[in-house]
């Protein structure tokens, strides 16, 4: 397939990238290209200018943040995320999810920033970021700003990024004592597309859930934090299977999933509690390990 004519610029720094984005009409960030190149082949979008940030070392890193959390450069490829030991303290789930995206070729180019900035309803990272309480560090012509999950994800394919702005990095907060997280997909086949994903973050005291964050992906435009489920889980013992079952039973009613070629809305609604229970189990195991 042939792309429409486009102009390309490879900035040498984040500053140059912001300039290129703000000074050119219809300019888009090009990172790994694992989505945008296809979009351009299919002519779903044809930006006038591509600002290639994929080689910027300034945006490719995983390191300890101030205050004990982790900072992840937006242009960090999935493969680097998957192999980073900086995530071992509290964020092993990020390594696992990154290591399962697409295939080896995709993981060698695709970036976590691209995943969250695309905010496709089936993207892996938005629901995970939602339960990890990530913050998104944005840089633009008017300076730097940080926004939380609720503001960053703004409906299907929508984010808080304004014209001329670029996602610089994602910050994960300092891991809490007794906390663990998991991300569980529902797939038709091993390593195939997800019909639904559930991300869970739990903070335990002994076997009791003190705090729970649960998000469902692939069902709505933005990752959904299911507050009913989160309140129902508070005070429940992770080892009490029937209490967990009771807490998760109504999850499907809180969702308005689509019917599509992968699964019907009813199937997704019904499977939501099953997948949620798996995610709770795995998050508890992560908390206890």
């Amino acid at each position, binding site marked *: 397939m042939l792309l429409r004519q486009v102009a*390309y*610029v490879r*900035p040498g720094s984040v500053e140059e990238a912001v300039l290129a984005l703000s000074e050119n009409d219809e*300019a888009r960030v090009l990172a790994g290209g*694992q989505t945008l190149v296809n979009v351009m*082949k299919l002519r779903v979008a044809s930006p006038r200018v*591509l600002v290639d940030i994929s080689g910027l070392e300034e945006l490719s890193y995983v390191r300890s943040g101030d205050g004990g959390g982790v900072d992840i450069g937006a242009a960090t490829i999935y493969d680097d995320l998957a192999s980073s030991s900086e995530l071992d303290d509290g964020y092993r789930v990020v390594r696992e999810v990154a290591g399962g995206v697409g295939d080896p070729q995709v993981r060698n180019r695709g970036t976590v920033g691209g995943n969250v900035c695309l905010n496709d309803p089936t993207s892996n990272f938005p629901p995970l970021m939602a339960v990890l309480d990530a913050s998104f560090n944005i840089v633009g012509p008017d300076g730097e700003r940080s926004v939380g999950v609720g503001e960053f994800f703004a409906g299907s394919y929508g984010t808080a990024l304004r014209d001329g702005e670029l996602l610089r990095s994602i910050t994960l907060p300092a891991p809490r004592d007794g906390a663990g997280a998991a991300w569980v997909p529902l797939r038709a086949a091993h390593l195939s597309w997800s019909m639904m994903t559930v991300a869970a973050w739990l903070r335990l005291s002994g076997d009791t859930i003190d705090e729970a964050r649960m998000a469902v992906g692939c069902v709505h435009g933005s990752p959904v934090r299911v507050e009913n489920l989160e309140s129902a889980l508070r005070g429940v013992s992770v080892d009490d299977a029937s209490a967990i079952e009771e807490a998760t039973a109504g999850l499907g009613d809180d969702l308005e999933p689509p019917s599509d070629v992968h699964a019907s809305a009813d199937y997704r609604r019904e499977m939501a509690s099953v997948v949620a229970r798996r995610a709770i189990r795995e998050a508890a195991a992560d908390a206890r390990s």
Partner: protein
Amino acid sequence: MPGTEPQTTRQITITVDGVEYTQEVEASDLLVHVLRDTLQQTQVLIGCDTGNCGACSVLWNGRLIKSCMMLAVQADGAEIATVASLSENGQLADLQQSFSDNHALQCGYCTPGMLLAAKALLERTSDPSEEEIRTGIKGNICRCTGYVNIVKAIQSVAGS
């Protein structure tokens, strides 16, 4: 200035299987088209054109990527290795010989990409399990073999 002025065409320098080329390309050119049509490296194949089948796979600075999913301009300054880099002086690499011995190809269309995927896998994990092999070739679709002999061929050279 190259870093700040967008250009619709760009001169790129790219090394393919050890040979350096300097070439003017359109910013809209895919790497696979420049490799095949401009640089005559027709051992790099086009399968699905949408980044799903992996037939176009090459090594870019040592990393396995799909060349239909990269713009040629993004490869400016890069080292590309195609399947042709596996053999030396007409001698097949062990991996290639193993594919032949184990009947790991029928039509051969997935084979250039598959060989590079196998090479990339073995460079990371010298003795992969069957599951690791199957995950390692996940980006390469084969319509003929059912993968069984491909897995065997890779296992055959693993650990060596």
